[in-house]
């Protein structure tokens, strides 16, 4: 029922792909064959070494600054189904580019307030007891444009600095057990092997809880943009603390007060004080279909779909409104419901062809309810940048076009 902007605004796309395919050297491109849909009796492609999406699909990450200065890209959430983000569409945020690291030479050193400093090769880490867990990662700057009522025009721009993968690796608690903690240990400081040696401090209590050292993502090696060959994964917490290209962990008596936990990723309040180590990403949800820049092609049945997540646990409830928040109905939570992971919600709706404002509101298993923008502004003022988990509204117009709505 919904068609994306790309479909409605670029009617020649399939023809273009077909031409591009036909021009490819040697073989007939499958997209070119599809132009004569009723005559597909030609033999298909032979197996390939690494499969790619159909040439009819063009899901892409989006970058605010698509040039050499770019340091982030957003996941096309509206294109996704289920709870897993394909690895190649996982959002990116890096401060000094993506390093190319040979896993054979990569080492993880754990030292500091430990009984036995140790150096681990990738082989060592893969030999250790492993765990696989679904977790979202969300940049705490996600939805930063949503502090203004106008907000971003589509869900990729408004919420796309969040993604969810199945991560595989070693529990940090197991590694810290290998090195043995000294009594004064109270924090760990993680360091990446990127050009700027990105570094963040993690409270020891959290480090010993569910933090992972991940080498696997969605069944294969972690992608380079996500920290290949090794990344820290601090479930439920702001993305920057999940240090990528992890090379060193120093067990310490205090946080290092690194630039990215003082100057950045702190939250300035109206009284001039700033909250620090605001690690947890609070419960949040967003409708991905219908969402901004999509178009409904006529009245009738529409399944409202979206994603919800909480850094404190599982999603216990998602409510959906089609009248700008005057009334709410419980959405169905369908599919897996893991802690600190994307959770898919769906709600049947019959569009009457009129103007409607669609909203979703998540509640997690601590009882926390996703707030409105007004509630966030009232408590935090207008100077915070990070941790915007406001209720997001989309407006369906009589034309079927969907835009950002002033909530």
């Amino acid at each position, binding site marked *: 029922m919904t068609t994306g902007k790309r479909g409605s605004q670029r009617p020649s796309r399939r023809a273009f792909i077909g031409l591009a395919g036909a021009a490819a050297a040697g073989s007939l491109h499958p997209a070119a064959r599809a132009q004569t849909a009723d005559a597909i009796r030609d033999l298909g492609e032979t197996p390939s070494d690494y499969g790619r999406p159909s040439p009819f699909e063009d899901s892409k990450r989006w970058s605010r600054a698509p040039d050499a200065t770019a340091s982030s890209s957003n996941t096309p959430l509206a294109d996704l189904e289920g709870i897993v983000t394909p690895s190649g569409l996982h959002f990116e945020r890096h401060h000094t580019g993506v390093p190319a690291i040979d896993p054979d030479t990569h080492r993880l*050193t754990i030292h500091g307030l430990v009984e036995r400093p140790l*150096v681990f090769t990738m082989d060592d880490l893969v030999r250790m007891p492993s765990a696989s867990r679904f977790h979202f990662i969300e940049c705490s700057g996600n939805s930063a444009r949503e502090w203004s009522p106008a907000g971003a025009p589509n869900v990729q721009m408004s919420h796309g600095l969040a993604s969810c993968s199945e991560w595989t690796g070693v529990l940090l608690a197991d590694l810290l*057990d290998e090195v043995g903690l000294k009594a004064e240990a109270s924090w760990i400081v993680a360091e990446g092997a990127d050009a*700027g040696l*990105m570094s963040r401090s993690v409270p020891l209590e959290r480090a010993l809880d569910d933090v992972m050292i991940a080498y696997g993502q969605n069944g294969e090696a972690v992608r380079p943009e996500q920290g290949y060959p090794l990344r820290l994964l601090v479930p439920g917490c702001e993305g920057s603390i999940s240090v990528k290209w992890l090379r060193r962990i120093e067990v310490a008596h*205090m946080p290092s007060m690194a630039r990215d936990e003082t100057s950045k990723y702190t939250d300035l309040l109206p009284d*001039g004080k700033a909250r620090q180590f605001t690690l947890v990403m609070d419960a949040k949800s967003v409708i991905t279909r219908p969402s901004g820049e999509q178009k409904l092609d006529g009245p009738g049945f529409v399944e409202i779909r979206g994603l919800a997540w909480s850094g404190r646990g599982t999603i216990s409830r998602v409510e959906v409104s089609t009248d700008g928040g005057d009334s709410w109905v419980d959405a169905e939570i369908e599919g897996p419901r893991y802690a600190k992971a994307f959770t898919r919600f769906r709600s049947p709706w019959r569009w009457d062809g009129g103007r409607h404002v669609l909203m979703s509101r998540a509640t997690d298993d601590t009882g926390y309810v996703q707030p409105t923008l007004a509630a966030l502004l009232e408590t935090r003022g207008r100077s915070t940048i990070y941790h915007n988990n406001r209720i997001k509204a989309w407006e369906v117009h009589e034309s079927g076009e969907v835009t950002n709505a002033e909530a």
Partner: protein
Amino acid sequence: MRRRSSRLAFALLFVVVAARADDSEQTGLGSKPTAEELGAAGYTVFPDGKGLPEGRGTVSEGKAVYQQFCAACHGRNAEGDEAAALVGGRGSLTSERPRKTVESYWPYATTLWDYVRRSMPYESPGSLTNDEIYAVVAHLLNLMGLVGDEDVLDRESLPKIEMPNRDGFVPDDRPDTD
């Protein structure tokens, strides 16, 4: 290993574990680094000065380093250009347009040292010597009025610098909405 298949095995395990002075969950994987390897692995600088290396730098030396490596992006007087302003902004944090600079916002001078060492200059991080880092930090703190023209910064003096916003941070007290 925890099934206690025989008392002997369990006793042997206990001996092995006791030798590593910890409980029975260890794999023994990973290797012990030499002191040299450990030194090369890297380090962290902490607010109390732990981790700061030998070296020293003066304000005047730092001015030269700054002009050579930093001014092109941060401005001639660290007032900001392509890259962030480093000085100024004191008193602005409660205003409608807070100016969060090293001077107005950063709680620790050691963070400046640590960040310059890690990540600056942007195009060639890691290229400054420890003396150059002490010097450029001294120059910046001098621009902020936090060290005198003749002061020398080193591992002893740097952690003693009190930044203006030292007490400007509070713990996370969320959830903060009803």
